[in-house]
């Protein structure tokens, strides 16, 4: 069978990314232009600034993705692009660019759900991984526990009722003075802290064994900081970070294991930006090992927003026959499994 090459484009938040992926699994290039340094000045992603940066970076990033893969657009079989969910202004840059390229080169256009991309990042380094499997998706904007029934087909078991896991990391990091981006900073400083120093509540939701709620944990951290402050007691940044992280990681692992048992899933994967958190990776791996489950996780470079995961997801959509028209729009609140 002829190889299928997909150009994957991702601009849903603050990373301008493009990649060339062969047959959904082999990454020929993966270029990511991160704007973290820029947004750090503002303590978080500023949508208008992100969109402006995307416009400046998009062509060089795509060009580099093609040249590192040693291909030209004439070798590409389809263009895949994230069309939601995400920041609308940011998404629109990638969508307009992808449509124009596909149109000019008379190539099929495949719109990709950002979360489907994150899930598909697992296919890149695990040639043996095929649906069905259980996947926990945790990022700055999303917390989902899903059964991947087939490529691009999901059964959502649980989701966050309020803050996404990564959002809670960012907010707590800001509160304890670590700054943005919170995830990697908490991960790092936690290694020097005592995770049992403070008991923070777990992000469980009554009667919903697979749902999450992280606003309570976040508030508990803020209350703790306030109360220590009022009493004039010193706060250990590392202990707070480690204890908070433990509380979040435990609930993520517990719910995932519960679901794996309930639905008899032997394969468990994680995905999304927070999937590069070392405590989560270790805890999930250990829990899976104990129960004899196979555990899958992307390398950190495929956990962050990237074009390769979009190329991988687009490949499976492409061979299923998914095509989008020249009127494809960005859909900022696109739901997982929804087709527009």
């Amino acid at each position, binding site marked *: 069978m002829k190889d299928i090459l997909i150009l994957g484009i991702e601009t849903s938040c603050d990373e301008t990314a493009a990649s060339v992926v062969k047959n959904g699994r082999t990454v020929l290039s993966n270029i990511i232009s991160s704007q973290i340094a820029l947004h750090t000045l503002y303590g978080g992603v500023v949508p*208008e600034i992100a969109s*402006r940066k995307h416009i400046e970076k998009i062509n060089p990033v795509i060009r580099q993705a093609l040249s590192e893969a040693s291909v030209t657009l004439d070798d590409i079989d389809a263009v895949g692009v994230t069309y939601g969910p995400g920041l609308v202004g940011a998404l629109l*840059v990638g*969508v307009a660019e992808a449509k124009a390229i596909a149109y000019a080169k008379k190539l099929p256009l495949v719109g990709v759900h950002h979360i489907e991309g994150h899930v598909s990042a697992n296919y890149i380094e695990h040639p043996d991984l095929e649906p069905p499997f259980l996947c926990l998706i945790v990022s700055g904007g999303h917390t989902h526990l899903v059964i991947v029934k087939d490529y691009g087909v999901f059964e959502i078991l649980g989701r966050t009722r309020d803050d996404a896991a990564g959002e809670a990391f960012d907010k707590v990091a800001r509160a304890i003075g670590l700054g943005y981006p919170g995830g990697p900073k908490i991960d790092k400083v936690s290694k020097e802290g005592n995770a049992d120093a403070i008991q923070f509540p777990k992000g469980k939701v009554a009667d919903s064994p697979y749902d999450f709620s992280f606003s309570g944990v976040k508030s508990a951290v803020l209350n703790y900081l306030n109360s220590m402050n009022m009493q004039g007691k010193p706060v250990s940044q590392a202990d707070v970070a480690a204890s908070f992280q433990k509380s979040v990681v435990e609930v993520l692992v517990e719910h995932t294991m519960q679901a794996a048992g309930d639905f008899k899933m032997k394969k468990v994967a994680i995905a999304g930006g927070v999937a590069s958190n070392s405590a989560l990776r270790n805890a999930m791996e250990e829990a899976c090992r104990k129960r004899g489950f196979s555990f899958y996780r992307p390398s950190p470079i495929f956990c962050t927003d990237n074009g390769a995961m979009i190329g991988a997801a687009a490949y499976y959509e492409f061979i299923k026959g998914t095509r989008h028209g020249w009127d*494809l729009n960005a859909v900022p609140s696109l739901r997982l499994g929804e087709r527009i």
Partner: protein
Amino acid sequence: MKILALDSSGMVASAAILENDTLVAEYTINHKKTHSQTLLPMIDTIAAMTGTELTSLDAIAVSAGPGSFTGLRIGSATAKGLGLALDKPLISVSTLEALAYNLYGVPGLICPVMDARRDQVYTAVYRFKDDRLETAVGPCAVPVDELLTILARYQEQVTFLGDGVPVYQKQIEEKKTFPVFYAPAHLSRQRAGAVAALAKQYFLEGRTETADEHKPDYLRLSQAERERAERERAEKERAEKEKAGV
């Protein structure tokens, strides 16, 4: 010479194909549907109806701003994607200049006004001299009152056009101290045909850019950058006062 021109800087979405001195196609929609949904299908339609192969284009022109930030980026990203895929240069045309070009040859001053929100308009003042558009006042974002004060200095007839007219016509009528005209409906909004005609001039003068380097000309910082600059200025002033012992 063949140019594809786009304008999605405001409510209007418009695409045109210019071949030498002939505007072979122009498709303009002034309706609510987002440019993301309309612009490329419009390009596709006019290319198909005129049998234009995109590979035969010499350049892609885009109305580069000022205007709606998102609208500008849809036009720019579309032009950049086409330029990258077809290996063609881009031509950035000022949205205000292209609007003024709708009124080719009109005597006196020509003043495009685009509703810029925050009680301001994106505007500039032009006049035609010897077949060419001459800039009297360069692009800026100002309150209409300030614009009227500037225009009053000339004491010439002024023809207004643009989507700022319906928003500010009453204010203009109340405060004008000079003869005022308003462009009729078919000339009063962005048209890719005018972008294409101006782009042809630019192209002949060698004023092209690569698809990679092109970006919109927003004329305004983002709100976050503006507020940060204001904060920094205030802090600097406070520090200087402290230093001076005030």
